[in-house]
Structures are given as structure tokens and as C-alpha cells.
């Protein structure tokens, strides 16, 4: 259930370069998220114990907009965030990368702001820090600012979400910026590895798992295509507004209703434009990616469960990932403590449309062959009775319960997390997550492994230097 690093649209508040700030970057994601959602606050009778316990309240406006208020008054800030069911998964090849380009265009001229310069100036006047991200199944935009600027920020967000102009001049100017982001991604050898593996894992509908997109599509993007995305996906009944921080629920809902009610509902975009199912990986394969790197990196990917089709498997996947991530696990001791791997991680990424299961490991040239064999052996052993203890299974669930407290400490970050779960799995999944994790059994974990991992087709990518590749005979 790791959250992927999304294409970061604007970095309006955080330096991209080597500037080690003491303050934390607001697009950093917490590691795990376990929160329950309160019952609807105003429009339904009765209040939920979840809301009182976790200070999260939810309501749906008449136009279909989900409004979530995350109440945490520890500091006098509020984060205003809009999440949209958009991203790579909505993109056929001729739109690949345009959800991301759209995210960039959000921060430019709209019906009340003449151009990006004025847009950014306005945010600075409000004392806001801002950013946006585009992932496989979610695009989000957020401003964090002093509480006293909240009303103006809500109005600003409303105008930006409902009235972007996609001026040709700004679109043309933004293309090299987005391709500049592309250049930076391609400068990172790990991106090259991930992309090579993904091209084989998602062999038929690759565009729908490629948030950064394709250069030629980005460079030929038109205003008309931006408008198509807007009309199709940027509707309230496909979106969620999250207010997090020093904001009381009734105040948040009243403001949301006042500002966002005029936003017109639209047709369900996924009826006319359904997301195709990814066919299974055709056959297990290995791909070598050469780059000037100093260690050897191994990435193995399987197609994992979809939240909508095999919910139980997603819970099992997360409990297993937790067990394996502990330093007392056989997985860790056999691979890392033994010195075969420098690090190792097996994680499932929760998605509505086939979440990937990824094993990531790094090793040195001289230990590569033994490391790969050891990884294969570990996977084969995972369904064995002694692979993890009852205590480790119990600990994983305890850890999940405590982790939620760490995650809640930062409302400005936590709202991104809540938005991710809203988008990828739905609020009901989020509501019952901890309770369902507690029900995961050894049998459930074994079923998950046997259904998705052990003996199943997968793609292994190896990132290695040209020199080491020759040494290893790859």
C-alpha cells in the first residue's frame, strides 16, 4: 500500500535542487495511513464514533462533491486540497502525459486571474505554500496557508478548478517546462529502470500507468485537449475537497457549500470512457538497463490485486509487507543481515486498477548472483508455516494501529494521504481499513501470495553499469 511518488507539477513551494532545508517538504508522504472517516456531519442523523475519535468528518454536497474536514488545530494553518479522479489511468496513448500537463496549466490564467505571474503573486499575498501532483489514479492540488486567509484561498481554489483558460501562449511556454521535468526524470537511472520494467508489466495499456507521459504527446498538446480533460474529469461528482488543519467541521462544510456549490455536476466520465483491465503479463522476463551506476539494482514486478476486485488480497498484501519490512523478519535477516543485499523491500501499491507488487533490492556486483537466488528462495518460502511467527503477524497489526498517530501529526501532509485513499480505494475502504487488517490470517496471506506472486509471471529489471554487465555476463 505504498503511495507512489507522483510527477510533481510545480514545486511552487519547494526547491528542486540540492538545498537540504531543515523544514520538511510538504510533498513528502507519510509511510502508512490508517484512519477512519467520520459519518456525514450535517446531512445525516447521528454522529459517528470514528469522527469523534479521529477528527475526520465527511459530507457530500448536492453537486456530488465529497467534502472532508480533517480537524487538527495544533498550528494555525489550513490546507485546502482538491483531489480529482484523473491521472495516467484515464489516458489512452494520444493523451499520455496530459493529466500531468493539465496539472501544470492549473497554476496559470483562469477566469479571474489573467496569467501565471498574477496567480503566483496572489498565492504569495495569501502567505500560501502550494503544489500539485499527478499519479496513476489521482491528481491533487493544494495550498497550505494561515487560517485567516482560508476564505480567500477557497475562492481562489474554486476559480482555478472551474475556470482555467489554457491560453495558447501559456500552453506553448509550459511545454518545455514539462519536458524539462521529463529530462530530469531521465537523468535518474532508477527512473529508467522503473520505466523499462513498467513497459513490460503493463504491455498492452502502458499509457495508463505512465503519469509522466510521452514527450511527443506533451509537445503537441492543444487547448482543445485540455478542455476535453476539464469537461470530462474536472466535475464535482468526480472530485473531493479536503480541508485539513485548524478548521472546525461545521465551518469547513459551510464554507465548502458557499464556495463550491455553483460547480456544475457532470456525467460520470468512466461510463463513456471506461478504464480497460490490464491483461496479465504474457511471460516472465528479465530486462537489463545499462546506466553509469555503482551498485546493482534489482526490481521485480508482478501485477497485484485491484481494490474493487479482490479487496481481501489488498489487506493481506499490506500485512505481509509490514512483516517483511521488520528487521526481525526472515526476509530481512536472510537477505540484508546476511550481506547479500544492501537493502530489500517488497510492497504492494494499492490501486483501483491492478496495483503493482514490487520487490526492490540492491546489491554489489560480486554478490549479485547469490542475491538473486536468495530472493527467489525467499519468495518460494513465504507460504511456509515457519516463515513468520504469530508474534510477527500480531506485531504488524499493532504497528499499523500506532502508525496512524504518526501520520496524523502533520495535517498538511495527512490530507494528501486521505486524498490518495479517497481516489484509489474509496472512503469505505479507508473507514474499515484497520479493522480489516486485524482479520488477516496466515491463510489469507498464503492465498494472496499464491494468487499473485508465487509462480506467477513477472518482470525482473536489473540496473547495472556497462562494465559490470559484462562482468556478470548479463
Amino acid at each position, binding site marked *: 500500500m505504498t503511495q507512489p511518488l507522483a510527477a510533481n507539477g510545480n514545486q511552487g513551494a519547494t526547491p528542486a535542487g540540492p538545498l537540504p532545508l531543515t523544514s520538511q517538504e510538504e510533498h513528502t508522504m507519510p509511510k502508512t495511513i490508517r484512519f477512519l472517516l467520520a459519518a456525514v456531519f450535517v446531512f445525516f442523523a447521528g454522529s459517528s464514533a470514528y469522527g469523534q475519535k479521529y477528527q475526520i468528518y465527511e459530507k457530500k454536497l448536492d453537486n456530488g462533491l465529497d467534502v472532508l474536514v480533517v480537524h487538527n488545530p*495544533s498550528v494555525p494553518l489550513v490546507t485546502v486540497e482538491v483531489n480529482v479522479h484523473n491521472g495516467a489511468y484515464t489516458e489512452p496513448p494520444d493523451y499520455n502525459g496530459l493529466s500531468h500537463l493539465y496539472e501544470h496549466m492549473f497554476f496559470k490564467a483562469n477566469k479571474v486571474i489573467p496569467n501565471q505571474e498574477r496567480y503566483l503573486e496572489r498565492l504569495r499575498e495569501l502567505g500560501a505554500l502550494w503544489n500539485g501532483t499527478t499519479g496513476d489514479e489521482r491528481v491533487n492540488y493544494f495550498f497550505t*496557508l494561515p487560517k485567516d486567509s482560508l476564505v480567500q484561498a477557497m475562492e481562489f481554489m474554486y476559480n482555478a478548478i472551474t475556470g482555467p483558460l489554457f491560453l495558447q501562449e501559456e500552453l506553448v511556454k509550459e511545454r518545455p517546462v514539462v519536458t524539462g521535468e521529463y529530462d530530469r526524470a531521465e537523468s535518474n537511472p532508477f527512473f529508467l529502470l522503473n520505466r523499462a520494467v513498467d513497459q513490460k508489466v503493463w504491455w498492452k495499456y502502458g499509457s495508463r500507468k505512465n503519469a509522466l507521459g510521452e514527450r511527443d504527446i506533451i509537445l503537441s498538446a492543444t487547448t482543445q485537449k485540455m478542455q476535453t480533460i476539464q469537461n470530462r474529469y474536472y466535475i464535482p461528482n468526480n472530485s473531493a475537497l479536503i480541508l485539513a488543519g485548524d478548521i472546525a467541521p461545521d465551518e469547513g462544510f459551510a464554507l465548502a457549500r458557499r464556495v463550491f456549490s455553483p460547480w456544475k455536476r457532470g456525467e460520470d466520465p468512466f461510463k463513456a470512457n471506461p478504464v480497460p483491465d490490464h491483461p496479465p503479463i504474457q511471460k516472465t522476463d528479465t530486462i537489463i538497463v545499462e546506466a553509469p551506476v555503482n551498485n546493482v539494482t534489482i526490481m521485480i514486478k508482478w501485477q497485484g490485486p485491484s481494490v474493487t476486485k479482490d479487496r481481501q488480497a489488498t489487506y493481506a498484501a499490506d500485512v505481509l509487507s509490514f512483516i517483511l519490512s521488520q528487521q526481525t523478519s526472515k526476509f530481512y535477516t536472510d537477505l540484508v543481515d546476511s550481506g547479500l543485499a544492501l537493502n530489500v523491500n517488497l510492497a504492494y501499491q494499492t490501486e483501483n486498477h491492478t496495483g503493482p507488487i514490487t520487490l526492490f533490492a540492491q546489491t554489489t556486483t560480486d554478490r549479485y548472483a547469490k542475491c538473486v537466488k536468495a530472493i527467489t528462495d525467499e519468495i518460494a518460502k513465504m507460504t511456509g508455516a515457519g516463515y513468520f511467527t504469530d508474534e510477527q503477524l500480531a506485531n504488524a497489526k499493532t504497528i499499523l494501529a500506532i502508525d496512524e498517530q*504518526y501520520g496524523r501529526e502533520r495535517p498538511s501532509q495527512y490530507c494528501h494521504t486521505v486524498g490518495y485513499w479517497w481516489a484509489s480505494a474509496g472512503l469505505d475502504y479507508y473507514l474499515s481499513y484497520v479493522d480489516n487488517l486485524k482479520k488477516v490470517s496466515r491463510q489469507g496471506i498464503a492465498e494472496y501470495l499464491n494468487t499473485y506472486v508465487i509462480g506467477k509471471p513477472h518482470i525482473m529489471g536489473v540496473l547495472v553499469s556497462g562494465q559490470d554487465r559484462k562482468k556478470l555476463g548479463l
Partner: protein
Amino acid sequence: MHMRTRLVLLTVAFIVCSGREATAKGTEGFSVNGLTVIVAPNPATDIIAANMYFREGSARLDPRQAGIERLTLVVATKATKKYPKNTLSAALERMDTRLGANAGRDYASVTLQCVKENFAKSWDIFADVILNPLFDSSDVELERQQMLAAIRQSRDNPDQYLQELVMNAFYAGHPYAVPPNGTEQSVRSLSKGDLQEFIKSHATASQMLLVVVGNTSRAEVESMARASFAGLPQGSYAPVQLPAGEHQAPSIKIVQRKLPTNYIVGYFSAPSYGSEQSYAMTIAGSILSDRVFDEVRTKRGLSYAPNAGIGPLFDNYGQVYVTAVKPETTITVMLNEVKKLQSEPVSEKTLNDKKNGFLTRYYLNMETNQSQVEFLARYELCGAGYKQADLFVQHIKSVTPEIIQKCCKDYMRNLQFVLLGNPSSLKLADFFP
């Protein structure tokens, strides 16, 4: 309104946001047999963060022992005399307590984060890590290999490598030239005996600083600190005087690497962290960042990632940074913005907007106990004193356009550039206006 800690600020009239008043249960500093302890109670969450700092990081080291702090402290967290490896790992996992170690140029630390109900048990492990680490040979070797791999890998990521290059260029001959993560040579040479000697000589009352923020009290922390650390040897720590360095001329170093774009950074000197001028400089750096973003990206579409700012070191630097296919055009635009800051005072509007933004950043930093620990500690460690943390907003408030302009004239010059990439054309004169 819910109060958090004494760090929460008084309302400042000119800043359009609500502040918080200091409470009677505020931050307190005291001594436990010579060990300085700072405690900031925060009943708002059930989380407690406690860091033990070792004053002066790699800047104090013999270059031949570069990396010894990191290796010592990371291995120390693996096992102790009371908590052998598996016992320690299992205990931390059961409680979801987070124990870590960091080593930088100015200081190193052992960090603890836990929930209140597990504070006592977690503290016991934390104290034992500092006082009685085991340094099992297998743990030492394992961590050594990890560090060596990390040193090699740091050159794979262009941003990370760029930072190494510019730090080496800017701080050549300075104590900061000693890398906290070590070199392959220095890390290979460190022995188990070196680590044991290091912790013995550095885990002293005079050299360490304990900072705790969270759902606890001074009385509780003082009692625990006395029980654990009252027996620490005093030690004979004396601060290292960092040389006041200044570059007399701009420079550029080009490191060839085949990349889709060029990575460029230029460092300039900045006032010391916590000094009076550092506030103006921090604001100036942020205004410069806004301007280069506007000029390079918004108006001209020349780069995805132009920025500027001020570093976090005690003997500090500022920077301009960009990734660009055509560096010469981009750098000219950025240096032009530096010139404008030097020649024209910023407007009152710009300054007030920026101050508002800084307040937002300040509060973001106050969201977690761990970041509050770090904020207090840095003021104490740099010599300004932890009480300055309470005065952050006042210092920001007092900055004027004239002070900013003077700072920019005094410091934003003689930039030391590094370019990592393969530019097809380059006019070196563009880097030296």
C-alpha cells in the same frame, strides 16, 4: 484555542494570521550533572520525540576518520549490552518506536520517536544505545558495507552528486570539507576499536545535548535523564572555531556527464545560522527563489526547476540552482535577479507577503514534535541559545528592505558554480557578471 508549546507565537499585528500565546508550561532548559537538557511539553498528541545530539559533527573530525560518527551511531542503534540485536529489534517493532541516527557537518544525533504509553521502555533502549552500545563485529561490517555502497551510489543521482561537488568546491580547505558520510578510504579504515573509542570520548555531558518535545513534562524527563545520564563523564568539550572564509572571485567547475539536461548550482557565502543577519538573508534567498522562478520558468519557460535559497549550516551558504538544456541563457537571467536585489530595495508589499509565507513555513515546521526538537536544538547548538526559537517571528518582523539589500550586496557575490552535464555551448563569461 488549543495551545501547543511555548514555541507557538504571539500574534503579530502585521501578519494576517492567528498566533498562539506562550503558556506557563513552556520550553525549559536545565542541567543534569553538566548535560544540557531542553524540554518542551506538548500534550496535543501522544507522540514524544527525544534526540540526543553530539555537538559538532564532521567539521571536528580528522579527515582520515571521516564517517566515524555515522558508522558509530548507526551501529550503536543495532545492539547494546542489555538489548542484543534481535531483542532490540523485536522490542522496537512491538512498540513501533522509531530509533535512528544521523550525522552531519555541524552535529550528529541519536533520535527517538514513540507514543507516550511506550515512552519509558523506549527511553530505556535509547539510553542504552548511547551508554552501552555493543559494536558487534558483524554489525560493524554490515554497516560499513552499506556506507560504502551509499558513497558509491551518491554519484549515480545527479542532484546528490552535484551537491557533493559544490560542497567540495565551496568549502575546500574548510572543516566542512570532511564529508559526514566519509570516503571509501576513510570508512574502510575504521575499526571496531575506533568506534568504541569514539563513543567513549564523545558521549560526555559537555559534548551532548538532550532535547525532548511531546506529551511529557520537565519533571518526567529530568527524572529519566538523571537516572540514565547522571553518571556521564563531564568530558572536555570545547567548541571548534570555524574559519570565516570568503571567496575572492567567482569560479565554475564543469564535470562532464552525459545527461538529458545540465545540472547547475552556484554557492555564495551567507550569514551564520541564528545570527541577526541570517533572518534577512533567509528572506532574501526566498525572494530570489520567487524571482528566478518567475523569470526563468513562468515568463520564459527555460527550466522546470530554477530555485534559490539559503542552506542549513552553521557556517552557511546560499545558492542559485537550475537544470537547463541551455545553461548560458538561464544563468544570465538568474544572475540578473541577484543584481536587482543588490541595486534596488524590495517593495514593502513583497516583503510583507514574504513574511506571511515565512510564518506559514514556520508553523509547518511546528507540526511535528520531531521537527520542533530539531528547531530548538539547532539554535542551542549554533550558540544562539534555544530561547531564540521563540523569537523567530520577531526577528523576521524586524527585517526591512534596506537590510535585505545590504545583505544581498554583502553576500550574494563571488559565486562558486558547478555544472554537471554536457552543454553543447557555454559562455563562461555568463557565470561571471
